[in-house]
């Protein structure tokens, strides 16, 4: 942690309390929809609003299991497959690319860098039709592959721009030491540089995953079968179906958030340590 000393005593308590207050303020919207999802439709509209539901109403959750051909668990699995796939592609392609851009001065480097900047700028409306034609040609239409390839286009340029800084901040001495030990450029990259840039790689992986996780347009356009679509498409359908029926909508939102939040909370030890431990010293 930037080598900050461990804070103890009174200051520790004050800062801890302050941090929890900040947490409550920033996460209030989530708390609020959780409470709303447990209320009846009448109670939601009551003035003054009740903070904690007066009468626990679980009907909105039950309704989701019962309605339609939408399968929550299947959608989750789909979203996971798509997001993991997109993350793998992003990381595998972006890590070497950012190293190349940070450490080598080859011809056309600037143009490529500008290229990566530009490619992530296109609004989705422009991309849908041409991508659709491509995926159809590749026989990927209506498969997770189409969404994976499309989602990776968000993660790759992002990761390159972030990781470039990481590799640039690694002193050349480290790399040269590897050459003296008999590494060539590629093995030095894999054995020495990637481990050092691990926090950056972790961040890129997380962001690539989340971009893919949150994507709506690609998953919905390139996959037509409801059973194969990601969870975001499910939410979108649900909103079309239940408009302002807030008890249902908030219940759906909660169901969507909880599993991700749980995974994240359990994983966060690794994520945070991965992000902060490998920092370059000196």
């Amino acid at each position, binding site marked *: 942690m930037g080598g900050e000393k461990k804070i103890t005593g009174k200051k520790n308590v004050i800062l801890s309390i302050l941090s929890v207050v900040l947490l409550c303020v920033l*996460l209030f919207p989530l708390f609020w929809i959780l409470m709303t999802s447990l209320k009846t439709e009448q109670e939601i509209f009551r003035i003054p609003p009740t903070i904690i539901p007066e009468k626990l109403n679980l009907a909105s959750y039950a309704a989701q299991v019962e309605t339609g051909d939408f399968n929550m668990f299947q959608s989750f699995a789909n979203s996971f497959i798509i997001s993991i796939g997109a993350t793998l592609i992003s990381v595998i392609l972006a890590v070497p690319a950012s190293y190349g851009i940070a450490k080598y001065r080859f011809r056309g480097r600037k143009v490529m860098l500008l290229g990566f900047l530009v490619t992530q700028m296109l609004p989705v409306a422009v991309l849908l039709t041409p991508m659709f034609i491509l995926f159809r040609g590749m026989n990927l239409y209506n498969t997770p592959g189409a969404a994976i390839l499309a989602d990776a286009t968000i993660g790759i340029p992002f990761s390159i721009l972030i990781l470039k800084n990481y590799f640039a901040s690694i002193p050349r001495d480290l790399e040269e030491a590897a050459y003296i030990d008999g590494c060539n450029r590629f093995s030095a990259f894999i054995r020495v540089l990637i481990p050092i840039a691990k926090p950056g790689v972790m961040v890129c992986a997380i962001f690539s995953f989340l971009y893919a996780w949150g994507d709506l347009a690609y998953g919905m356009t390139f996959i037509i079968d409801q059973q194969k679509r990601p969870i975001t498409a499910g939410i979108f359908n649900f909103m079309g179906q239940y408009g302002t029926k807030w008890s249902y909508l908030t219940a759906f939102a909660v169901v969507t958030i909880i599993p991700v939040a749980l995974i994240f909370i359990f994983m966060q030890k690794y994520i945070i340590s991965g992000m902060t431990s490998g920092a370059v010293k000196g």
Partner: protein
Amino acid sequence: MKKTRKRLFAYDNVGILFVLPAFVYMLVFVGYPIVRNIVLSFQDVTVRTLTKPDKPFAGLQNYIDIFQDPVFIRSLLNTLIFTVCCLVFQFIIGFLLALFFNQNFKTSKVVRGLLLIPWMIPITVTALIFKFIFGTDVGILNYALQSLGLIKENIDWLTSTNTAMFALICANVWIGIPFNMILISTGLTTIPTELYESAALDGAGKVQTFFKITLPLLRPTIESVLILGFIYTFKVYDLVYVMTSGGPVNSTHMLSTYSYKLSFELFKYSKGAAVANVLLVILLIVGVFYLRATKEENE
């Protein structure tokens, strides 16, 4: 020693091998749409010509038309206002939080981790949440403001042309804070501890250390955060589409949503493409500025 280093690193074309796979990938999936979109914007493609093999050439007509279209001008301004407001707020708040949690107290890591949750939620769901909070009668915000005595009557946030943009900015800042916080946090870890220690020995105060050490060393991180933030905010789509669909009365249309509407709701494909290209040109200019700004560090 100096010479070997130069041979190893400077103008070393081996580097291109590392970059090429990613570059080709992007060229295929995004380069082609860009080219296609540019062609499309110079044609006149509507429902009547969409499936015809020969599409009429329109020259600059689409661009002339959109610049005379008040909704387009409004979208352009909206996009700029939205982007600048979001960037300013989410950057400042994110930065402060990053500094705060960079202190090593008991709950710092756990709470910082939890604060990432808003960023993990699909934007579609975030939009839903904020639509609920900003609701006129059902929304908690109006109730809170009323009980604090700040307003007398409920504000119709999302159905009034003056306030819908504000609601969108709030939602987007909420999403953007963790993004800024985490990138700056990781940036902070790249600053060597020794620098702070020696600064402390020299008797530098906190403020001084921040401006003399933290900020300059964070520059590359800050540049990336701002530029990425700009790009992702500028092409905002899902949030606006779900929360307001550009309404009420086009007051929250962004270039991206307007382009979508022209293309897929009004079937004016070429005009939609032209709007998207304007967005692209603006971002391209920003991109070039970014490269200029980072020149020093690269050379």
